[in-house]
């Protein structure tokens, strides 16, 4: 375990220098900012013209947090490529060298590799969220001026932290699934579909209330309130977040076991 910091730095360097990672983080930051601005302009125009019923909400915070799904998409892409890049053949022909060979000869402890990758992805997503969410809130407040419905500060901070946690847990889940599949297409599609408000889980919730324990719906209330998504049976933020965290940890545990036991 003394070598873990070394592995961590190696993984950080490897992930942070992939052009795909930078693109993913750009999506997670620029995307929510753009949508937050559009949303708050929509709210401002509705309020100025005296037709607040045109929009679903009237606060800056709601304008920002309804844009959070784009941050989830960025987190999904980062989680997928942190792992799938290891399995992309660099000589595309027969056989084909894969980076995973170099990774595992440099760090024979498989558990350390998974732990380091998960830590790096979590840190990058949290750092992006820590910059993006306050900037979005500031921008939305600027656009709205004094027009918007004031939101409780404590409540807004809690939702900001909740969105960051939601992005991070989503990234960790798709990372774990990609370790299992060794191929990015499936996890990428599943991750983006479930980032959206038209996710498969929402459909399932019409069939069975158990769907509220699926990770994306369980964690939804971490940042979304009723004006963004109304789900009568949805779990409250704290229990929902815990359910989502359990999913993430469970998937990471399964993928670590499989990764440790199988041939590279």
């Amino acid at each position, binding site marked *: 375990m003394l070598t873990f910091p070394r592995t961590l730095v190696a993984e950080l360097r490897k992930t942070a220098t992939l052009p*795909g990672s930078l*693109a993913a983080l750009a*999506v997670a930051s620029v*995307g929510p900012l753009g*949508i937050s601005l*559009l*949303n708050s302009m*929509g709210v401002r125009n509705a309020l100025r013209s005296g037709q607040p019923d045109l*929009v*679903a909400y009237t606060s800056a915070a709601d304008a920002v947090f*309804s*844009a959070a*799904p*784009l941050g989830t*998409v960025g987190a999904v*892409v980062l989680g997928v*490529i942190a792992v799938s890049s290891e399995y992309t*053949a660099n000589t*595309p*022909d027969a056989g084909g060298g894969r980076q995973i060979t170099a990774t595992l000869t440099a760090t024979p402890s498989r558990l350390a590799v998974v732990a380091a990758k998960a830590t790096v992805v979590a840190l990058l997503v949290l750092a992006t969220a820590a910059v993006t969410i306050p900037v979005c809130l500031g921008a939305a407040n600027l656009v709205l001026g004094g027009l918007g419905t004031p939101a409780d500060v404590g409540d807004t901070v809690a939702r900001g932290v909740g969105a960051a946690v939601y992005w991070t847990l989503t990234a960790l889940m798709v990372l774990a699934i990609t370790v299992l599949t060794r191929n*990015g*297409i499936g996890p*990428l*599609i599943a991750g*983006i*579909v479930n*980032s*959206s*408000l*038209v996710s*498969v889980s929402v*459909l399932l919730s019409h*069939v069975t209330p158990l769907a509220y324990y699926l990770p994306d719906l369980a964690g939804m209330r971490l940042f979304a309130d009723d004006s963004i998504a109304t789900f009568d049976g949805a779990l409250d933020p704290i229990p929902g977040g815990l359910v989502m965290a359990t999913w993430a940890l469970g998937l990471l545990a399964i993928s670590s076991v499989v990764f440790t036991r199988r041939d590279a």
Partner: protein
Amino acid sequence: MTARRHRLRRATTAELIKLRGLPAALAAMLATVVAGALFAAADPAGPAQAVPFLQIGPIVLGVLVVAAEYSGRQIATTLIAMPRRLVLLAGKAGAYLIAATATSVITIGGWLVPGRPAGRWTVIGAAAYLVLMGLLALGLTVLLRSLVLPLAGLLTLVLVVSPLLAGYTEHARWLPDQAGRALSQPHGDFTTGAAILLAWTASVAAAGTVAFLSRDA
């Protein structure tokens, strides 16, 4: 002229054989058909609710038939076997259209079972929408020569960004998926929707074609 038609037929069948050899493409088609059957069973009223999910299939298919060329060096083999690039692109689009039309018709067919209330035009419109979204994906991938970029980009557009924008600005109706959605809705503006979606598909396909004809392999 006949030599050209002959070549086009060859290119199309070669591309169909290629498609048959890609397990991921077959999986995307199968998954779409299965999902369609499930949706039709759960919601027999019409395909409108299901289309946002079902479009994932043709989008993946459209991206894959092109991205597979660039994930290794198959593109070199392809261009050596079919050096006339316009014929090759036409063959690729033809093979996609055959596979995607078959998939979409079977997928949407669940709503055409006698006794179901879905209108015939919404069903045909939904199938056409699915085929065209995949063609848009195909054109975009020719332009970008990548798998992740067009796939993540288009899925994010149609599943995340477009619903967000649709709630807040009426200009969202110019987006390809919002416009095309009218094809599968009972009271949608069929003609305008089709025109906007076709314009998107045609311009992306044209940009992809120009890039493909002018650049080195």
